[in-house]
């Protein structure tokens, strides 16, 4: 079933655009870039339909990649139900975003370069998803990290873009470090990195080992999916063009962490402490980033923090054993978050680059299509009942309640906060009078058609019943009883959030400012993102940079190594200088030295031969 064709198509697009893009016109670049992704999507549909029910994984082996001693890594792809979902999400959303990007990137520089990177990203994401052993997954994992770096730093002439790119790459690397340690442990203990072999031996391994592996995998997931300790790169990643944010930082790459934890569910099932750690980390991230999102003024920053928060939700789902709920939320989140970002993109496009909510307002009448499509997404994310967000979030909250009731109440509060900041952004941007001084114009059809499609999907998404689809896949998962009362509470929370947003930004705009001024301290800390960046900078970056400069570079390298090498040289030279003076040409000084030598020799010989000093020999 030619699974290899799925990643190769975008790769082909990348190669062609990358090498010859400069000489192609925009149209030709489009055909190759968009064509390859859409073809990949079509091919995914064809293969999935062809494979039928996919009860068991279908694997294809192409060549043995590494063969050294007991290590045997084959380059082989596998498709099962989980992969199917991910393939559909990645290629589907990917092609929509590529189409949208045509319009958005129309008058930006480096057109072919953008699409080449996007195609490369698709290739790596597909490899990641299709991989059937940890190392190939890790290749995809690193590849997407690289592409995110390239795409964030797309506007390479702007310093904050390149800095953001660096930040993203380095933080990801820290995560990858944990991931590779986990892989080492797996290989050492299970003798192979293949999913099948590892998961078959997992139940037999002792829980301590599994816990460590789980925690290390968690670190990797944290780095990639921007969870609490390593989330700092995501808000800065907004420096990249908006389609990038949509594709990479909303729909696909950030979900890789969730997919990886879901993929290795047998390890986590037998490591309860690791499961709890995931859940706690998830809920903490959700609450934390939601609070920051409340006060952000940049529209993209609001959605970035919302993504971090929603990912927290997904990890809560995974942590509480509801893997299918997590995946479900992943899919629905991909729909409405991509829509929100693309909408924000068209707003920015309309206002020709303006991103600050305080300079927007009253765009409802000027760009109606963007407004209403974004409203679909807002409603979905807020958890209003019939829409997709409600179903997946509710499933997760139920599982959380079943797992740990306090987690459920936190989740509900976060849901309320989510609803509040999304609608705050919506009301600030589209309601009231226009505060900016650009003259907004509606975005072209190539941009709002994908918005419309995504809008439809985010409305209908809830009815694609992923848990039923995956219930055979995750064995041994705790059963979650239906509980309508909890559902009513979460709906209420969402509605309250919407009402508050309406109250503060449409009914009485003054309330927002008075509230901000009264809770001065809280407002400023939230605005400055709890000063996390500054703390990291002071606690980690400065010492490392300083340490490496003063201690490693100046101290060790220059001082010790260079010092000793040059020292030896100068010592020899010094000695040479002294000895040179000995050759003074003055015969009598030679004589003196001869005498000195002879006296010395006599003394030494005497001391050596007789035991005058009590036995020298």
């Amino acid at each position, binding site marked *: 079933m030619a699974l290899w064709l799925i990643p190769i198509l975008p790769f082909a697009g990348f190669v062609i655009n990358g090498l010859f893009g400069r000489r192609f016109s925009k149209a030709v670049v489009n055909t190759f870039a968009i064509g390859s992704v859409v073809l990949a999507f079509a091919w995914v549909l064809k293969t999935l339909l062809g494979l039928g029910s996919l009860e068991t994984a279908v694997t294809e082996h192409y060549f043995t990649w590494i063969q050294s001693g007991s290590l045997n890594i084959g380059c082989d792809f596998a498709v099962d139900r989980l992969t199917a979902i991910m393939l559909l999400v990645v290629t589907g959303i990917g092609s929509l975003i590529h189409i949208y990007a045509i319009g958005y990137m129309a008058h930006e520089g480096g057109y072919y370069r953008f699409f080449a990177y996007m195609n490369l990203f698709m290739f790596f994401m597909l490899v990641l998803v299709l991989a059937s052993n940890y190392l190939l997954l890790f290749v995809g994992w690193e590849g997407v990290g690289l592409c995110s770096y390239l795409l964030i730093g797309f506007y390479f002439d702007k310093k904050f873009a390149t800095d953001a790119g660096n930040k993203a790459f380095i933080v990801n690397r820290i995560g990858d470090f944990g991931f590779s340690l986990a892989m080492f442990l797996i290989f050492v203990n299970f003798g192979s990195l293949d999913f099948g072999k590892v998961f078959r031996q997992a139940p037999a391994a002792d829980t301590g080992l599994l816990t460590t592996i789980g925690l290390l995998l968690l670190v990797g997931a944290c780095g990639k999916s921007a969870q609490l300790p390593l989330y700092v790169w995501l808000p800065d990643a907004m420096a990249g063009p908006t389609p990038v944010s949509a594709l990479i930082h909303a729909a696909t790459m950030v979900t890789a962490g969730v997919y990886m934890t879901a993929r290795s569910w047998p390890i986590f099932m037998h490591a309860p402490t690791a499961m709890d750690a995931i859940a706690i980390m998830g809920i903490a991230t959700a609450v934390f980033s939601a609070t920051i999102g409340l006060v952000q003024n940049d529209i993209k920053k609001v959605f970035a923090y919302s993504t971090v928060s929603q990912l927290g939700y997904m990890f809560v789902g995974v942590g509480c054993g509801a893997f299918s709920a997590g995946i479900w939320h992943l899919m629905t989140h991909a729909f409405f978050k991509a829509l929100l970002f693309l909408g924000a993109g068209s707003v920015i496009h309309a206002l020709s680059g303006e991103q600050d909510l305080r300079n927007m307002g009253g765009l409802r009448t000027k760009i109606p299509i963007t407004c209403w499509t974004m409203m679909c997404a807002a409603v979905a994310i807020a958890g209003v009942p019939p829409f997709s967000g409600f179903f997946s979030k509710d499933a997760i909250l139920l599982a959380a309640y079943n797992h740990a009731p306090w987690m459920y109440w936190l989740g509900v509060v976060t849901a309320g906060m989510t609803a509040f900041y999304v609608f705050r952004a919506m009301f600030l941007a589209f309601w009231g009078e226009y505060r900016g001084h650009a003259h907004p114009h509606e975005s072209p059809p190539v941009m709002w058609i994908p918005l419309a499609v995504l809008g439809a999907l985010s409305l209908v998404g809830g009815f694609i019943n992923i848990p039923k689809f995956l219930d055979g896949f995750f064995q041994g998962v705790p059963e979650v009883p239906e509980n309508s009362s909890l559902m009513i509470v979460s709906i209420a929370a969402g509605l309250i959030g919407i009402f508050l947003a309406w109250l503060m930004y449409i009914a009485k705009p003054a309330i927002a400012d008075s509230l901000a001024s009264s809770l001065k301290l809280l407002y400023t800390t939230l605005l400055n993102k709890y000063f996390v960046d500054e703390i990291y900078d002071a606690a980690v970056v400065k010492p490392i940079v300083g340490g490496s400069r003063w201690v490693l570079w100046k101290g060790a390298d220059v001082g010790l190594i260079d010092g000793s090498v040059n020292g030896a040289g100068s010592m020899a030279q010094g000695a040479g200088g002294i000895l*040179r003076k000995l*050759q*003074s*040409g*003055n*015969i*009598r000084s030679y*004589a*003196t030295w001869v*005498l000195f030598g002879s006296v010395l020799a006599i003394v030494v010989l005497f001391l050596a031969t007789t035991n005058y000093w009590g036995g020298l020999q």
Partner: protein
Amino acid sequence: MLAEVPMSYFLTLSAILFALGVAGFLFRRSVITVFMSIELMLNAVNLSFVTFSYHHGGATHQGIEGHLFAFFVMVVAAAEAAVGLAIILTIFKNRQTLNIDDIESMKN
């Protein structure tokens, strides 16, 4: 007691002469005097040679090596004096000086 001289007297005398030779060698500035103090040193050494041959020889005659050594030292000293003085002549012809400090073309 009067008829006998302990050997160490001879050795001390030889040491004193040698030391004087070394002093002359170090402190004198004329080449010829330096050369002469070398001869003095050689004589001192000869004396100690003969003294030791006396010590080893005693009544029997096999202690002759000391004398032979001294004899060869003398021969070599003669050869050395001949060549040395020839060199001094040539130095004087080229440099018109006998002061040892002026002859320092071998400086580094």
